[in-house]
Structures are given as structure tokens and as C-alpha cells.
């Protein structure tokens, strides 16, 4: 039987995916006699099950939510790459270093980029309660900065051809980063600690 706490990341994930208090309580109680792997599997599958159940209850709302979220991510991705391209163009003369040196690694950057964005979003979340406008500026600024870093690392000749053929891929990479940012910002307060009794 576990006497310590479940891994913090699983708790965060559970808070995000499972909105049913009784279900998350059952998962924590069940974890006491089982492994962390059991909790991982249950949280992920239960989260998917809840989403599928709710989507079946209100299919129109589910479709609208998916479309709206995709549109917001796409618009913010375009904004981030647009700002990065503009900055690349402006600092062309002042920044003579070669760009695109890590082009072949850009797909491998997806997972770490999402994880970094979640951490940054989690930090921004602390401001969320009382400073909504600051949160918006920080999110949009961070997304644009991430797009700049992406362009510098992954896009050959980013300064001379700022909005080139790599733009769609850069927008997708920015969308993934922004999705991570939103996930971090949406973090709720973690649950109460478990007693060892």
C-alpha cells in the first residue's frame, strides 16, 4: 500500500481530464493498493471515456468546441509566426548568424516544446486570478518568442526569406506550443494531500 503521494504530474493530468469528484477520489483510493502504472492507465483511459461520453450527450457542442479551439490555435499560430517573420526581417542586418542549422530536428522538438509551454503556462497561471490582461500579453508574447526561436533554429535563410515555404510547418509547431501554453494556464489548484492512514 502506498503511503506517499501519487506523482504530481498524474495529479495535474487527473485534475485536467476528470471533472468528476467521485471518480477522481476512486482513482486515488484505488491507487493506494496498486502501481503508478495502474493510475496512469486509469487516468488516461478514464479521461478519454469521459470526453467520449460527454461528446455523445451533446455532439453539437463537442463539434463546435473542437472547431472553435482549432480556429483559435490557428489564428494565434499565424500571429506568432507573423511576428517572428517580421522580427526576422527587421533584425536581418543586426543578426548575421546563420539560421536553420537544426532543420532536420524540428519534428523532434514537438514534445519538449509542448512540455516547456505547459511549464511556462503554469507559471503564467499564477497571475491569472487578478491580472487577466497581463496573462493575455504574456501568453501572446511567449508564443511569438517561441516562434522566433523556432525560426532561428529550424528555418534556413529565415532572415532573408522570413515567410517562406516553411511557414505552414512553423504555424503547426506554434499551434502545438500554444496548446501547451493554454494547458499550463488552465492548470487548477492541485487536490488536497493524501493522508497516509
Amino acid at each position, binding site marked *: 500500500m502506498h503511503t506517499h503521494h501519487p506523482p504530481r504530474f498524474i495529479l495535474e493530468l487527473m485534475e485536467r481530464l476528470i471533472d468528476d469528484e*467521485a471518480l477522481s477520489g476512486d482513482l*486515488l483510493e484505488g491507487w493506494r493498493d496498486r502501481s503508478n502504472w495502474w493510475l496512469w492507465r486509469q487516468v488516461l483511459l478514464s479521461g478519454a471515456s*469521459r470526453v467520449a461520453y460527454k461528446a455523445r450527450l451533446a455532439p453539437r457542442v463537442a463539434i463546435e468546441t473542437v472547431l472553435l479551439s482549432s480556429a483559435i490555435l490557428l489564428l494565434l499560430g499565424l500571429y506568432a509566426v507573423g511576428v517572428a517573420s517580421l522580427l526576422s526581417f527587421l533584425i536581418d542586418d543586426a543578426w548575421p548568424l546563420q539560421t536553420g542549422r537544426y532543420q532536420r530536428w524540428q519534428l523532434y522538438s514537438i514534445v519538449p516544446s509542448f512540455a516547456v509551454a505547459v511549464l511556462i503556462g503554469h507559471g503564467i497561471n499564477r497571475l491569472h486570478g487578478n491580472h487577466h490582461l497581463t496573462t493575455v500579453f504574456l501568453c501572446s508574447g511567449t508564443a511569438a518568442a517561441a516562434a522566433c526561436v523556432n525560426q532561428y533554429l529550424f528555418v534556413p535563410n529565415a532572415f532573408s526569406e522570413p515567410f517562406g515555404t516553411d511557414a505552414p510547418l512553423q504555424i503547426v509547431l506554434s499551434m502545438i506550443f500554444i496548446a501547451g501554453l493554454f494547458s499550463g494556464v488552465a492548470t487548477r489548484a492541485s487536490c488536497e494531500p493524501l493522508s497516509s492512514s
Partner: protein
Amino acid sequence: LSRDYLTDFELMILLSILRIGDEAYGLPIAREIEKTGGRGVVLGAVYAALDRLETNGLITSTLGAPTQARGGRAKRFFSVTPAGLKAVRRTQRALTKLWTGIAQLEQGGA
């Protein structure tokens, strides 16, 4: 959406609640299905089925007090309504009728 008969999973859940009695909440129900049904169960799927059964008026639920052992979260206790009992009996009768008169099953073997 109401149906005349229960799915096998819904039937297992209702029978588990009846077997467990007053202490029927999500985790014991899932354990009962794992023990007697010999199948692994995802708690989220159990809750989705419980919600569906409650919407159809076959079970009711009440929230218990929050406990420290569950990170301050309450248990949700379930009980079968008279309509739920009726649905179980109706499904049992239908299955029993289907069961009888099948030569392969009456001879035994795999």
C-alpha cells in the same frame, strides 16, 4: 435514450450494486466486475455507464462525506431503483429464454 434491454456491462454494474449493497460506490463496483466477470475495468467507463443508468432512472446516487484518504473527495453511493430491478428481471428472462433449447449448450463442452 431508453432501451428495453440492458447491455452486458450495464447488467454487470446493476448486479454488482445489488451484490455490494449499501457500500456500492465506483471502486467496489469495478472490483466486483473484475472479480466475478474476469475482465479488466476502466473506472471512467464504469462512471459513464452509471451516469447513463441514472439518467434512465435505473439507479440513484447520493454523495457521502469527503475523506482525507481520497484527497478530500467524496464517495458517490449508488442504489438500484424499482425500475432498475424490473430491467434486470426483464433482461434475465430474455436471456434465459434465449439460453434454453440450444443443443450445443445443453450437451456441455466448449
